[in-house]
């Protein structure tokens, strides 16, 4: 037995009630001053065991975990070697725990306001739920209107109800709710602070239209002579004026001037919109504004975009107008879209007779061109498109090339089968290798793996189910929030199963596709989950802080300010005070750590030349003891 160890017990499920009782009983019976649990990762059950220790009257920070599962038994095939390593890890934990000191958590304040970054369905739903609980919420949306991707969709699966019909009421509610402040056409620039009290700086871009004055009448749009801007809402399939309201149901229903397109802003001449605006809302001199606000919690709801289909030009997306992405098809099918909802092929506006859908364009692709993950929503929306087309235009032949049809979800497979069986959509198991134009039609060369034949189809349109990727702002925002992000730029959860809507960074929550591909119902339920986590946080008056914070020994401090300079939280300040150094009284400049601000990174401890600065719970001595024990 290791020195200092007086009791050891093997039990299979230490985290169970019974297991915890073993720990509690041992603490009481043997008067233990420290506990080492050799088990799974401390990231999993450290809190459990600490709580158990506390219940038995031991300071919870007198517990250490030796991770002999994730870091040992699960990866080492050789039992003997693994056991040997487990012993070493245990020895290190024992060495550490003997140097542990009881720690007491401090308290910090909770600002009772939340920030939601992104105003799509995820952000809107999260904000509505938080607001309903009585807490103020700000939604920061980078576009001129909230609504996000869902506003662009025509119908939703598997119910086929109209997307904007179910979204618009939520948008209106977000506007009307007095606890919600919409900050549109704005981006978060800087975030500092930590859970309970983040500080954010938000840049509200100049709209050149006074938001509180504009009535949204739209006269300016009809009079604007610059009409060459690509209509982003319609995926660039048609044009819009330089001054525009993104779409009819936009919230706020306020115009915005695209400064790249506006003749007045570029040349100083024109000014027509100002002349026709009876409300007097146009202001060409408007500047970006900054809003600074404190928040207790922040929700990321930054959403997604489809990948660039021109990376897969074997499908001729760049060269053939009649090859479109699924999101473009949504706009073509939508009554508010460029064709007024009539299915017409883009090249010549003619009615198509044959449409080929290609699934998994850029999804499940590890070649470097696409994304390694399944985009999850494509099988269902393709079935939806196929079904809607067959329903509205029974003369149109629809073929779908698929690798697998993935339809887990309530009524999802039934939906897909309806497309195939009831609507006679031709599902072909196989992929398309090439699409090209010939004699005014598209030639699609694919394979049918079931009949083992290469097939060549003539089509009037080809629809690419392009993979989705996190919105490019996600990485920037995540970095600002110090939320971890994975190799695909999806935000990492605190735990993939048990804490799916929280980031490992306390106070940062995840809503919608920024966490991983998901459909609308999943997004809405995740949005609600994130909101409930936020509400739980904001409902508290105080937060207990991490007691593993830096601490400076006054007697050793040189007053050199090195620590102050590397602290990311400005948690260290200097004070000139009278120090009694073993009987010698002297006025010295010494470092003081604000424990409420310190997050315990330890950067200060290493730059401190005298070793005055140390980190509770991860002290120099403790880590040295671990090193010693490992290298024994």
């Amino acid at each position, binding site marked *: 037995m290791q020195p200092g160890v007086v009791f050891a017990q093997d039990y299979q499920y230490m985290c169970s009630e019974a297991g915890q009782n073993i720990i509690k009983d041992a603490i009481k019976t043997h008067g233990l001053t420290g506990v080492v649990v050799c088990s799974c990762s401390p990231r999993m059950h450290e809190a459990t065991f600490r709580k158990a220790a506390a219940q038995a009257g031991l300071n919870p920070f007198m517990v250490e975990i030796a991770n002999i599962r994730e870091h040992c038994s699960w990866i080492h095939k050789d039992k003997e070697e693994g056991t040997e390593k487990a012993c070493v890890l245990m020895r290190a934990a024992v060495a550490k725990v003997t140097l542990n000191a009881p720690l007491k958590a401090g308290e910090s304040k909770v600002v009772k306001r939340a920030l939601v970054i992104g105003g799509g369905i995820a952000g809107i739903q999260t904000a509505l739920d938080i607001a309903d609980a009585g807490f103020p919420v700000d939604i920061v949306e980078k576009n001129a209107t909230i609504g996000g991707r869902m506003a662009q969709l025509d119908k939703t699966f598997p119910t086929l109800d109209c997307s904007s019909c179910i979204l618009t009421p939520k948008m209106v509610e977000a506007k009307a709710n007095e606890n919600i402040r919409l900050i549109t056409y704005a981006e978060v620039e800087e975030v500092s602070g930590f859970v309970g009290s983040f500080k954010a700086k938000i840049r509200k871009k100049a709209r050149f239209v006074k938001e509180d004055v504009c009535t949204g009448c739209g006269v300016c749009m009809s009079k604007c002579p610059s009409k060459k801007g690509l209509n982003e809402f319609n995926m660039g399939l048609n044009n819009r004026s330089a001054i525009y309201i993104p779409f009819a149901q936009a919230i706020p229903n306020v115009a915005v001037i695209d400064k790249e397109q506006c003749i007045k802003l570029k040349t100083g001449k024109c000014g027509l919109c100002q002349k026709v605006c009876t409300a007097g809302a146009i202001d060409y001199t408007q500047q970006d504004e900054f809003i600074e606000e404190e928040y207790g919690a922040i929700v990321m709801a930054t959403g997604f975009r489809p990948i660039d289909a*021109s990376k*897969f*030009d*074997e499908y*001729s997306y*760049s*060269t*053939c107008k009649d090859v479109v992405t699924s999101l473009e098809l949504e706009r073509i099918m939508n009554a508010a879209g460029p064709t007024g909802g009539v299915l017409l092929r883009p090249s010549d506006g003619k009615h198509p007779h044959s449409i080929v859908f290609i699934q998994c364009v850029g999804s499940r692709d590890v070649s*470097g061109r696409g994304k390694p993950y399944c985009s999850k929503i494509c099988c269902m929306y393709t079935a939806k498109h196929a079904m809607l087309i067959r329903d509205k235009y029974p003369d149109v032949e629809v073929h779908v090339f698929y690798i697998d049809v993935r339809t887990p979800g309530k009524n999802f497979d039934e939906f897909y089968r309806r497309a195939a069986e009831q609507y006679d959509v031709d599902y072909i198991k196989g992929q398309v290798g*090439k*699409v*090209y*134009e*010939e*004699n005014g039609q598209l*030639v699609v060369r694919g394979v049918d793996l079931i009949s083992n034949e290469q097939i060549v189809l003539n089509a009037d349109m080809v629809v690419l189910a392009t993979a989705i990727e996190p919105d490019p702002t996600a990485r920037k925002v995540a970095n600002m929030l110090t939320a971890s992000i994975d190799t695909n730029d999806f935000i990492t959860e605190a735990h993939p199963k048990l804490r799916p809507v929280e980031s490992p960074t306390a106070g940062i929550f995840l809503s919608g596709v920024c966490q991983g591909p998901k459909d609308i119902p999943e997004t809405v339920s995740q949005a609600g989950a994130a909101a409930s986590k936020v509400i739980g946080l904001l409902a508290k008056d105080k937060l207990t802080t991490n007691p593993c914070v830096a601490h400076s020994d006054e007697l050793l401090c040189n007053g050199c300010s090195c620590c102050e300079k590397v602290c990311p939280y400005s948690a260290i300040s200097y004070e000139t005070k009278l120090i009694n150094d073993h009987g010698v009284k002297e006025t010295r400049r010494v470092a003081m750590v604000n424990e409420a601000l310190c997050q315990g990174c330890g950067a200060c401890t290493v730059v401190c030349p005298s070793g005055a600065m140390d980190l509770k719970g991860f002290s120099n001595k403790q880590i040295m003891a671990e090193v010693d024990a490992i290298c024994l």
Partner: protein
Amino acid sequence: MNYSYYPGCTLKTKAQELDRYGRESAKALGIGLEEIDDWQCCGAVYPMVRDEIATKLSAVRTLMAARDKGQKLVTLCSACHNVLTRVNNDMRTDEYIRSRANNYLDPAVPYAGETQVIHYLQLLRDELGFEQLAQAVKNPLKGRKIGAYYGCLLLRPSKVMAFDDPENPRIIEDFVRALGGTPVVYGMRNECCGAYVTLKDEAQARVNVERIIANARSQGAEEIITACPLCMYNLKKHQDGSMPVRYITELLYEALGLKEADANADE
């Protein structure tokens, strides 16, 4: 600027025009092409199985010769370009192949893929510049509707060849534009013409050629240009002659006014 130049065997025999037009045009453009001394055939086909090293050695010798001259290596034939680029990549990235090839050749300085292999078209685009080229054009190819035929060898595998977007290449179209012609984009321009089986399976090669030519024609091409002697042979052989096929260098030669000069000289 001077470059090492690797013509390859076909340019010395059946594709002499490709070579001559290329050299003369380069000269007219002020580009120095120095033929590598004592070059050997590159092997024409990149050996795809990993345990074949010997068949890559002649390419390594050529690459080393350019390295020793401190010059970039310019190729013209698509097949040579493919073989040299890929073998060079092996020498740069594959320790297994590099060590064996160096052991076998035992050069004074071991070769590790230092040479930069560029195709004649890249020479024009990246070293000279298509804008510069356009200014040198004396006889713009006005009104000519030209379909570029890339084939496979210049483009694939794109990770190694890094020639252009493998699915939507633009370099030959830009080249045609620089010469004053009208490029015609057609989907089959990067599909294989079947030249690899042209000796033994003519029917198969014919199917491929017909597809390509039909597609080019449907999109409005009136002539096709290529950089590959084998494609040239194949594309000519399996059609009725209604679709002219020319080398890229011939077009260049013509646009630079050199063909006219030849004709005048003949008179």
